[in-house]
């Protein structure tokens, strides 16, 4: 059976976190879609909260701790990425953005990315398209057409409403699976002696 790697990033803060719940649902749906196509999926899921201090330390010192480096390697070496953030003050959370700020800005080129967000009200749903999508476009990732937003009421209001969240999750998972199938990112042989992405041509300290 062919194997593909899927990385899942959740920037949720609480326990349990609805952001993590959405991320998990997206991952499960994607794995199911890949399974239908005869593909085994290795999922690595990370709560950014677990490396929150490491992310800030990287921001200040310019290099990742071994713990954060492992997360960055898992994310950048995956065949697809599911990235989910809570919406804070009309945009991605600072923790979510900071994680992508410390990753080399070439490391996510061509990466299929499924973006998702959670918030207390559906009024924030466009943040996915005016904040999160442009960020990944800047990073030259392939952002899927379907992004998935879950407001509190999406987690179950009964009332016989049309269940749109599961539909959106399923559609997004299908789009991601289609790109992950053809990805060779996780099979690329890394030259252990190659100069890594941190060898920046602009060099030096960060300018300030």
């Amino acid at each position, binding site marked *: 059976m062919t194997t593909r790697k899927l990385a899942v990033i959740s920037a949720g803060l609480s326990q349990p976190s609805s952001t993590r719940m959405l991320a998990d649902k997206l991952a499960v749906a994607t794995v199911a879609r890949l399974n239908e196509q005869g593909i085994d999926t290795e999922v690595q899921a990370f709560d950014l909260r677990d490396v929150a201090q490491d992310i*800030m*330390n990287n*921001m*200040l*010192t*310019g*290099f990742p*701790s*071994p713990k954060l480096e492992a997360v960055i390697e898992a994310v950048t070496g995956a065949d697809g990425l599911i990235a989910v953030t809570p919406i804070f003050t009309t945009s991605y959370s600072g923790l979510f953005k900071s994680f992508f700020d410390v990753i080399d800005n070439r490391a996510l080129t061509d990466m299929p990315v499924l973006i998702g967000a959670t918030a207390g009200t559906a009024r924030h749903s466009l943040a996915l398209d005016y904040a999160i999508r442009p960020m990944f476009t800047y990073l030259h990732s392939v952002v899927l057409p379907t992004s998935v937003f879950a407001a509190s009421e999406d987690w179950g209001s009964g009332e016989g409403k049309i269940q749109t969240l599961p539909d959106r999750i399923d559609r997004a998972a299908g789009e991601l699976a289609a790109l992950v199938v053809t990805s060779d990112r996780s099979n690329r042989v890394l030259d252990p*002696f190659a*100069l*890594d992405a*941190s*060898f*920046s*041509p*602009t*060099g*030096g*300290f960060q*300018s*300030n």
Partner: protein
Amino acid sequence: MQFGIFTVGDLTTDPTNGQTPTESERIKAILTIAQKVEEVGMDVFALGEHHNPPFVPSSPTTMLGYLAAKTDRIILSTATTLITTNDPVKIAEDYAMLQTIADGRVDLTLGRGNTGPVYPWFGKDIRQGIPLALENYALLRRLWREDFVDWEGEFRTPLQGFQSTPRPLDGVPPFIWHGSIRSPEIAEQAAYYGDGFFSNHIFWPASHTQKMVRYYRQRFEHYGHGTAEQAIVGLGGQVFMARKSQDAVRNFRPYFDNAPVYGHGPSLEEFGSQTPLTVGSPQEVIDRTLGFRDYVGDYQRQLFLMDHAGLPLKTVLEQLDFLGEDVVPVLRKEFAKNRPATVPDAPTHESLKAQAAVKAAEARANGGKGAAFGLTSNPASIGI
């Protein structure tokens, strides 16, 4: 092997008492520290160059010129000289002058600078950092090696028949190190010319320094300057000592926690385990420093960052006593063990002079064939 210290010359408030030295106090402190380097038996004092507060050394050759008169033995160097924003003509003049005044006890470490706005302040574009470093250095080399220079490039007004004065002492330009934290282009440049490569080392994990130095060594061999193990490597280091480890950690922690570069970020323990920073007893510093050789090979120069983050002068001088009395003598002995005879020492004015004399003799023995192409291995012979 050479040992010494390098300073960035930051003017920082002492976090333990809230006191900030005046500029003149800090400048005088740097001069005192440099003379202490000679007193405790070390070999090199290297001074940074900055053009913005909180750093004081904007005019390195003024300070190094004073030190040339006040010292007899140590090599006066830089950490780093800004090859991007300085005019290479002025570097050629200033350091040839210093070289004469210091009787040859001068070398330079070239770098690109760490502050974005310095580029526009000097009329340069930071995005051109690497091309500036390459072109300016190529011109600097010619100014020191050819008596009259016709030159045209991208970044500076052309020169016709220009002679930089004074000429390098004994016709031998100062040895050049290329300093870098993370740019392979600079390691490549150092290798291309057969110059030294100085890795900052102290801000990033050892695995990174290892890659950079390995790359430089490979390229040094590729360009035919010798084997990879003969390349000229310098490393930074950062230590703080007390007789007892616990005292060192307790005394250094407030300075670490508030330091301009890494303060308010990782803990002292985290940073110490992820970078070469060593806070502890002299023996711990010895053990850690000897370990550098395991990942960069036998190397030529070890400089320590000692006076920063608001450490008072008295403390810095005590630290230099530790280095001179307890650490460096042991390092000299231990680094000499198992060092292949083929690994050279860092070039000095005397060794370069002797090398130039040998080359000149060879050229004469060959009937001066090289001169037919306008080449000469002894710059002093041009125009005589």
